[in-house]
């Protein structure tokens, strides 16, 4: 953050982001909190070189948002991002960061893949995670 006007600009934009979509803004703020260089949750979860540690942090934060979010929309967005973080770890690192059973995980990821209301990069992430899970589930490391 270089200048005073940059900093003021960031704070003013929070208001516009909340006006546009409060729940998506909340998910984006969590992503920016984990990695300040990322502009959004989608960017954090789909970037090819995202560290596994960031995905694990994101999964935990979105899991909490899914349960404790202020509104139904928050909880829904939290749920989507939670699954997307798990999918990203599978696709980008070959690692499972969830203790859910294969069956439960596949059910959730397929639901995400078929959800036409979510941004296409996340649906694509879910599709690729389903493919990996179906093809080589035993090769995934677990943390």
């Amino acid at each position, binding site marked *: 953050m270089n*200048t005073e006007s940059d900093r003021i600009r960031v704070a003013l934009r929070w208001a516009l982001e909340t*006006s546009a979509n409060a729940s998506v803004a909340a998910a984006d703020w969590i992503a920016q909190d984990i990695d300040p260089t990322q502009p959004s949750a989608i960017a954090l979860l789909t970037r090819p070189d995202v560290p596994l540690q960031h995905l694990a942090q994101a999964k935990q934060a979105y899991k*909490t948002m899914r349960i404790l979010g202020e509104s139904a929309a928050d909880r829904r967005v939290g749920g989507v991002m939670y699954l997307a973080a798990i999918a990203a770890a599978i696709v980008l690192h070959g690692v499972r960061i969830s203790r859910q059973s294969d069956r439960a995980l596949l059910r959730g990821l397929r639901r995400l893949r078929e959800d036409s209301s979510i941004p296409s990069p996340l649906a694509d992430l879910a599709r690729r995670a389903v493919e990996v899970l179906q093809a080589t589930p035993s090769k995934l490391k677990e943390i």
Partner: protein
Amino acid sequence: MNKRAASLTKTDWSLIQEAGGDGADAAAALEQLARRYWPPVYAYIRSTGRDVHEAADLTQGFVCEVIMQRQLFNRADPMRGRFRALLVTALRNYLAQVHRSGVNRGRPIEPSMISPAEIAASEVRTHVAPEQAFCMQWSATLISRVLEQVREGCLSSGQEAHWVVFEQRVARPLLLNERPEEYEHLVKRLELESASQAANMMVTVKRRFARTLIAEVRNTIEDPDEAEAELHDLLRGLDASQPGEGAK
């Protein structure tokens, strides 16, 4: 609600109406408005090339003559446009009048109104256009006011830990360039369950800040539905101040 909290929740337009009346309440409202708006006025004047002392004198002159004696706020009409624009126009006219007459009729305000420390804290870049300096200081003042409201709201609703997380993770790093406090420390210090809980607390307060900011912006414009347009306008004003930034 104490007097300070009450003044924080009053809208600009309700303060303006109150300032147009008589008695102690009107005087208090007038002082509240003057205190709220002198920093951008000072920034504007300083950016016209005046030195610190002359800018401070002219700021005092504008506050005394135009805001208090001529009761600028009494003439303000919410139906006639944005309050920010009204203030800039009045200020521009005042400076032109001072320039024509060759006399700065500014007179000292009570020392408590604008202290040297406040002047120093409001020091601005002198090489940006006056309107841009005004916009920047207006926005900074707005953000300070909103932060204070959010802080008081958190403390009065038993969400002190929420505020501390927001302050340490977001507000201080953003506004003071400080390093964010590690979640691990915050969880321990505030006796929270987890970092993910703390992250969601941060989001809760950041959202409250955003909503309070929108509400504050609505207070200064004629049509509450124009809040987003006003925010975009402020952002444009800040963008315009970018090129020359850096030196003081």
